[in-house]
């Protein structure tokens, strides 16, 4: 089968890869670049487990072909920590609030939450539920995720929890 050469900017690094044109972005990230933090739950755009940042916007990487990402910037869960491996405040709040159980939806939830906080530094519970409503979690019932996002926002505003 025909192969296409593309360059993705993933977590701040330029990655040249050769992929079949029909390969999805999530398969490229996971199987070609071996960034397995991004997960696959449905491959039909409902669960949000495959969410990544695409030029700063959250997208479902199961619904895109890798070739569509040629030349674009992608951030995966592996790119949320800073260069020294220090986890972000959002990741830290997820840990503090135990905003997960099995951890399978977590990378997608982090991406959705990060996108929310970039737009709205002071979300209320309704805003948070709205922002993560495209991401399914079967374990938590969402509450501790909502609490983690809220805690991040509070910490960023310097409010003591």
């Amino acid at each position, binding site marked *: 089968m025909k192969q296409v050469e593309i360059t993705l900017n993933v977590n701040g690094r330029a990655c040249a890869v050769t992929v079949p044109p029909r390969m999805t972005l999530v398969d490229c990230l996971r199987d070609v670049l071996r960034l397995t933090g991004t997960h696959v739950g449905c491959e039909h755009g409902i669960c949000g487990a495959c969410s990544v940042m695409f030029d700063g916007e959250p997208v479902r990487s199961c619904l895109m072909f890798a070739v569509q990402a040629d030349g674009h910037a992608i951030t995966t869960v592996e790119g949320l920590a800073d260069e020294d491996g220090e986890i972000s405040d959002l990741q830290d709040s997820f840990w503090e609030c135990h905003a997960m159980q099995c951890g399978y939806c*977590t990378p997608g939830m982090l991406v959705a939450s990060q996108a929310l906080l970039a737009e709205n530094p002071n979300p209320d519970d309704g805003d948070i539920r709205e922002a993560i409503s495209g991401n399914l979690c079967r374990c938590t019932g969402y509450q501790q995720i909502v609490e983690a996002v809220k805690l991040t926002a509070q910490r960023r505003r310097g409010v003591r929890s």
Partner: protein
Amino acid sequence: MTDAPTLPNYRYVSRKRRTKEDRRFITGRGKFVADVEVPGMKHVAVLPSPHPRANILDIDTSAAMALPGVHYVLTGDELAAETNSLFHGLDLPNVIWHPLAVGMTRYAGEWVAAVVADSRYIAEDAAELIEVDYESLPAAVDSEKMIDGDQPLVHPDHGSNVLFRKTWEWGPVEEDFEAMPHAVSYRARWGRSSTVPIETFGVVAKWDEITEIMDVWASIQMPQYQDQIAAALGMPMNNVRVHNDVDVGGSYGVKRGIKHTVLVSYLAKRLGFPVRFIEDRLDNMSGGDAHGPDRIFDITMAFDDDGVIKSMKIRALDDVGAYPGRAPLQLGKPMTALCGPYRVNSIEYEAISVTSNKTGQVPVRGFGQSPTNFAIETGLERVAKYLGLDRVEVRARNLVRKDEFPWKIPPGSLYDSGDFHAVLESAIKTSNWDDLIARRDALRAEGKLAGVGITTCLEPGGGNNIFEYLFNPKLEITTFVESVLIKVEPTGAITAVMCTTTSGQGHETMVSTIAGEELERDPDTIRVVHGDSLEALPTRSPVASRMTIVLGTATSNAAREIKDKMITIAAYDLGIEKDQVEYADGEFSVRGAPERKLSWAQICHIAHKQFHRMPPGHELGLQAYSVQQVPGAGQLPNEKNEVPLYPCFSFQAHVPLVEIDPDTGKVKLHDYFIAHDCGTAINPDIVRGMIIGGVAHGVGAALYEKFEYDQDGQLLAGTFVDYLLPSAHEIPPVTDIEHCTPSPITSLGQKGSGEGGYLGAPAAVASAVNDALSPYDIEINELPIRARDIEAALHEKTN
């Protein structure tokens, strides 16, 4: 929130502590099965049957085989000839189960062939090139008709679609019914839903012909997994190595991919390279055999003028789909708490398991208890309505009382402990019940439909599965064991080896917290690993809300043994009697002379390296293992079929407030209150997550989720577009309050908590919906209660 009688002064247990596992998940470092990369591994896609029931006349694989990148196409005939058939819980010699259909397909979605190729993409292309010649046949889909025998036979050699039917009677049922002035009869129906984890099932297998080891990495949560792989492949168990360190992306009971595993293990051995199969979502929902109970209950309850229930007659008819596996035994577990938390004197229970041309059923969170709780609670609502009594009061009158524990129920279980009235009271208080009723009435005054629900519910934990024996005397198994090995290194570091997988329950946190508590060492410094199945001690896997009870007690026991060894060494070295040694915070000192002491590190050094300072006759090193029996288990049923089943009983009371849109029937959950008692909570955040997550799962079962079939046996819900999992919009904020009645039979008073939310929420939500519909005199006792069901019922009443 905690509504706590004062707890012992634990350092780590019951304290807010970050979990051990979360750190790898927030950084994308979890190791799920699809992340396992074995060099040279090839990929499987399966071909599903489009027919619910059909004879397979011919399979032509030549075009698929010819596709570049394809290595093999396997059909059912070859696999059946080369492997042994899969295990059933019931004794069913004529119901044969293989991973791929043989001669006949028995449900739409059943796998007919499997392709192995360089990539999943190519494997799927090739699967489409397989030509199967089917003779389509009418399907058996109506479970009630199975009993009369006028449906096509799913397994013709078995001669009937009834797999199991038996009635038990515990206590003087007829006498009690005669003595009671009232009885109500009703039907409650539990729709075919399941747990549907966000991660599908997957498995990688690698055969090494030199070492003769079959390495298996799988997204598994299942007792006797390696036993069954070995049995199907016809090899000794020590040729199979299951890697228990694979993170499982949710299971809640269903990750039982034994057929998937036999399929890929066979292929790996046959082809000489590693093979992986990761279900896609449709594979998972149709052919993955991961559906849950599908039950019709017909129940009669006999009670007095005060609403005190004396006796129950329960008939449960369950449709397990085409291949039963262990599913029929899900009718057995509810015997553990067959009358819920209520003081019932006698019970008649008829359990009927039928097979149909539908996807197979597997264990689901609670192993059949949630449908049963829903059915019992429906009865409590009925009794209250019949007598015109308050719904809360009827429950309070029937609950077992605090001073009555241990309380024996008719089938033989001993409820270990609890304070049911206090927990119910706490739910009423937390929810501001009167305010909630006022809010409901205010909504009603605005022309809306609104209702408040109430449910009390037991969560049996611990998993003594001797009920299996009542279904199949060949399963004479009287334990459900779990083990841990703890070792302290020469430098003092502690490692615990647990023996099974984890699918979100936080076992590493639980084990390290308990070991840390017992040894007075910081749990953050204790490493917990998952030994593979060749290294592991006996295990029955993390099912049945049992790990905190059984693995937790094992951890306490092993840690206490290590502490005792250390004290023995200290006493010898200090030249004093053991009882003169005082241990605190990692220091062993002489009672009354605290300046004479040995540190933790010194004792470790002696134990590993200084034989001359060791007390004679003592083993070197500091290690202990504990193989823990389920507390109270170990008996066969007596002649009255009574036997203690699960050992520990957690309890909850649920109170939701719902509003229903009268035009669309759409239900909105405004608030949800739950008071909960699981004894000593080892990690409060984990317990809270389990409770709230369980509630969310139960809300799904109550309102949205169903594997719907049409009358011909076609599955209508194979994607997340037609099988609706609740999102953050559907799940309301949950206010939870913990009560603590420590169990007297576990090491620190802990009980189970993984199932409770799910065991009560369906009944609670149904109670609220029916309260909302009561002004129209509508009662819906069939789950899920979907918007369209409500809309149709309202339409019928108002037109």
